[in-house]
Every structure is written in C-alpha cells, then in structure tokens.
C-alpha cells in the first residue's frame, strides 16, 4: 500500500456473506474511489446487479454513492433486511 491507495474493510451479511464466501474482506482501492465505484467494480460482479439497489454504510452510518472512501473505512453491505 502506498499513499495513492486506501485500504477498506467490507462486512457482508445474510446471503451476501454466503456469496462472498465470508463476512469480512479487505480491499485496496485507488485514492479517490467512491462507494459507488467500489460497489460497481468489486461487489456487483459477485453479488449481482441487484446489489446496486441495496443500502450501504460507511463507519456505522448510512452512506451515499458519492461518499469518498478513506483509509481504514469500514463498509457494510446491507441486502434487503428481514428482521422481526
């Protein structure tokens, strides 16, 4: 990792964890990558196009596509919820 790269941790739940074969992955991304970029490039290929419609959080708060990812960020992938 160099100064042009940020390392983020991504958490997966429910069937997204099954498809990723794990609940936690680390990604090295070019500095300036947005949440939307990251989902499109790294997650959609595995989680499918419906993952564009899911919710995401960064550092335990809901986040929008244009959020710039910083080194050490924790992203959570939130497929459709089914609590209750």
């Amino acid at each position: 990792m160099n100064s042009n790269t940020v390392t983020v941790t991504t958490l997966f739940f429910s069937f997204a964890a099954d498809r990723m074969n794990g609940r936690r992955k680390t990604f090295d991304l070019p500095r300036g990558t947005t949440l939307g970029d990251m989902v499109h490039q790294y997650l959609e290929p595995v989680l499918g196009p419906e993952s564009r419609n899911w919710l995401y959080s960064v550092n335990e708060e809901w986040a929008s596509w244009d959020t710039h990812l910083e080194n050490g960020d924790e992203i959570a992938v939130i497929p459709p919820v089914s609590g209750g």
Partner: protein
Amino acid sequence: MDIYRITKEPIDVASALVAIGDDRAGAQALFLGTVRNEFAGRASRGLYYDAYEPLAEKELRRIGDELKQDFGALHVVLIHRIGELPLGEVSVLVAVSAGHRTEAFAAAREGIDRIKSRVPIWKKEHWDDGQDAWHDDPEAFSPK
C-alpha cells in the same frame, strides 16, 4: 426509560414493562414477534437471525425517537434477539407507554413495521425438510 438493544440472550418482557412504566401513562402496548412453525405454507423448525449490531442499535434508537415524536410515546423499548431461535421463542419486542390507547397501539404498530423495513437484521429459515434459506434472497428463497 428507553432500551434499544440487539441481544443474543432471551428477551425479558418484565424488564421492558418496568422500563416503560410512567404515572402519566394510561396505556402500554407490547408487540412480541415469535418463531412460527411455517412460512407461506412450508413447515419450519426455527430461525437464525444475523445483524449488523452497531448500526442496528442506532436504527432502533432512531425509530424510538420517531415514535415519541410522531405518536407521543412516553417511553420505548425495542429489543431484537439474534442467533439460533427455536419455535415459539420471542425474536423481537416492541413496548411503548402513552397517555391513551390509540397512541400506544399506533406507536407499537409503527415500531414493528419500521424495524422490519429498516433495521439491518436478517433471518434464515430452517425448513423442516432440512434445507435453509435466507429471507429475501432472490436466488435461494422459494417458500413453497
């Protein structure tokens, strides 16, 4: 007093009732979700609940604040249990106190509806035939 919690332990209804007690309240409404032996006609033997705990607790708190704002709830307790739950177990508790019963019922109903639509919790059905499926998984979940 308010309680917003994701827990692996059995949900204690008595503590929830103590928490919402208030001499200004004429009404307390509780909703308990319990694990059923079928879903959409297919036999089930239990549920597994997963959660993104820190964000789930934040969202429970936000819902509680809304129930006070929108319905005049005096106190709110929202607790969701996670992990493996056999049939009959309580998975979720919504408890509210209010001046009158109309507000109490409205707040409790909205409380469970908002939990089900917004809080990052997921359930996996353990079908009685031995198969498992996460709810809302578009590929794996076929209740029939």
